[in-house]
């Protein structure tokens, strides 16, 4: 007997609210189908009517969590079209903000994973510590979410000595806290047991479905745009690509914790080697007819912008591909043969934005046609109950 289980379409916790229709057999998901477009804003069409500078602020509003990723990806492409290069100091500050953004995004994700796994203390700890990096970003840019740091030819705000010291102090605190999370797994077998084996995505499938970011790296693919296609400062900065080969949510957690340490390292390097000089050069109003492919490693994976200019002050075409879209085919694959109780965790593993985690799930019973409306929190409670009763997986170990 098969049932249909629709989730969405109003799904504000994702960048694009989506509708997931799952075919379930008992507790097991057999098939999942996706319907997108509920939050399509026609942004690519709108970009063709705005000039190069206005578009920086437009693309920044694609996402609330990785806002700097989109504007950096756009700006580094347009700078190539305009044949200008940001001064070294400007570039260092730009990618410092990128790495701080990665830290806040990964800490946010860790909290969500803890919350969905029923480990709410972990969620509260990580989100409290996330405030440290949010405050640093606010000190640098004046804003917590849309930093508006980028401009064509550099950045808009400079750092002074006091600020650099404050950032370095903040990084020390963050590092200590992350080391604590690092040890936490070893002493908390229920957490590890809950994450292990959930949302399995084999390496072959991850490659075939073109998965990106921590999702791909947790399946043993060592792809990272910062290493493969070092844009701007990344060929000067020492860092390692983090991967795991357990192919499950535990692997994705491990990859993100390791990446936090790499980001701290990069931030420290950028701050200690911050060159003197200007932060921006003047950009022309128009760009010659040309085209450019701009790639950037956002916290969730590769972000790619294709920009074509036609000699005016407006783009001929701006194509944006955010990493979450690339991970949807893989997310369908992960849901297959999983349990209903694991949906929140698998969903969280693709790292959707968590602007609003409370939502309604409709359970349809195909035999009786009876529909049951459950709140997302109830679904999570069901998941918690199920795993409280099940025995702890003794054979799983924290991989550090």
């Amino acid at each position, binding site marked *: 007997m098969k049932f249909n289980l629709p989730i969405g379409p109003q799904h504000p916790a994702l960048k694009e609210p989506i509708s997931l229709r799952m075919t379930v057999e008992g507790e097991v998901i057999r098939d999942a189908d996706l319907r*997108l*477009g509920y939050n*399509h804003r*026609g942004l*690519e*069409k709108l970009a063709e009517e705005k000039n190069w500078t206005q578009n920086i602020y437009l693309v920044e509003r694609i996402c609330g969590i990785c806002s700097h990723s989109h504007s950096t990806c756009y700006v580094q492409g347009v700078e*190539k079209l305009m044949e200008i290069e940001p001064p070294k100091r400007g570039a260092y500050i730009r990618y410092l903000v990128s790495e701080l953004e990665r830290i806040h995004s990964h800490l946010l994700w860790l909290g969500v994973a803890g919350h969905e796994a029923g480990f709410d203390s972990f969620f509260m700890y990580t989100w409290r510590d996330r405030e440290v990096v949010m405050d640093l970003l606010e000190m640098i840019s004046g804003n917590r979410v849309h930093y508006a740091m980028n401009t064509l030819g550099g950045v808009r705000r400079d750092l002074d000595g006091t600020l650099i010291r404050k950032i370095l102090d903040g990084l020390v605190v963050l590092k200590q806290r992350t080391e604590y999370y690092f040890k936490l797994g070893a002493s908390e077998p229920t957490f590890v047991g809950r994450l292990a084996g959930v949302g399995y995505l084999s390496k072959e499938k991850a*490659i*075939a*479905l*073109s*998965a990106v970011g921590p999702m791909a790296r947790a399946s043993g693919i060592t*792809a990272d745009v910062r290493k*493969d*296609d070092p844009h701007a400062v990344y060929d000067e900065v020492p860092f390692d690509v983090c991967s795991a080969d357990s192919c499950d949510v535990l692997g994705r957690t491990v990859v993100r914790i390791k990446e936090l340490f790499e980001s701290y390292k990069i931030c420290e390097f950028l701050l200690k080697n911050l060159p003197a000089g200007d932060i921006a050069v003047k950009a022309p109003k128009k760009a010659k007819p*040309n*085209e*450019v*492919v701009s*790639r950037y490693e956002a916290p969730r994976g*590769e972000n*790619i912008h*294709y920009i*074509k200019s036609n000699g005016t002050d407006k783009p*001929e*075409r701006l*194509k944006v*591909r955010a990493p979450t*879209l*690339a991970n*949807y*085919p893989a997310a369908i694959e992960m849901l297959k043969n999983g349990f209903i109780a694991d949906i929140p965790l698998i969903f969280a593993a693709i790292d959707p934005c968590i602007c609003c985690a409370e939502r309604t799930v409709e359970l349809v019973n195909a035999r009786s046609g009876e529909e049951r409306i459950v709140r997302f929190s109830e679904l999570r409670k069901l998941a918690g109950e199920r795993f409280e009763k099940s025995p702890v997986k003794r054979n799983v170990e924290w991989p550090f």
Partner: protein
Amino acid sequence: MTDLERLESLKTALGGSIVEITNPARRRIFVTVDRANLAAVMTTLRDRLGFIYIATISGVDAGEAYEILYHMADAHGNVNIRIRVPKADGHVTSITPIIPGAIFYERELQDMFGLVVDGLPDPRPLIMPDDWPAGNYPLRKDWKFERPAEIIPGGKK
């Protein structure tokens, strides 16, 4: 692998299918091919050069024709395969059987440009709402948005 080696390996592998090959920036290669050869080119890229990752597919309205770019990448950089599709005959061969990760990008192409992707395993609309009027393809240059008059059910005429 340097860009020169990459250019050589592409020329050897693809041979006569290449119409034009350019290398405008470091780690960026643009290859124009005939649209009839697209599936063959993609198969060669996957099997002989190991390109399995597709970043995205971009469509561009270029006057008389649509330009479609397949942005592929591997650990050494980015290769973009470009085809031109005349507006009078908007058909493209699907590459989803070769690279399964391309499915969403091809469905998006159908929604946005009104192209027909032949051989797509799941050709339903991806982005457009169910009640979207037929024949409206937003990313075509001649398409202009007109806000439809608001009709309130049961409201005053």
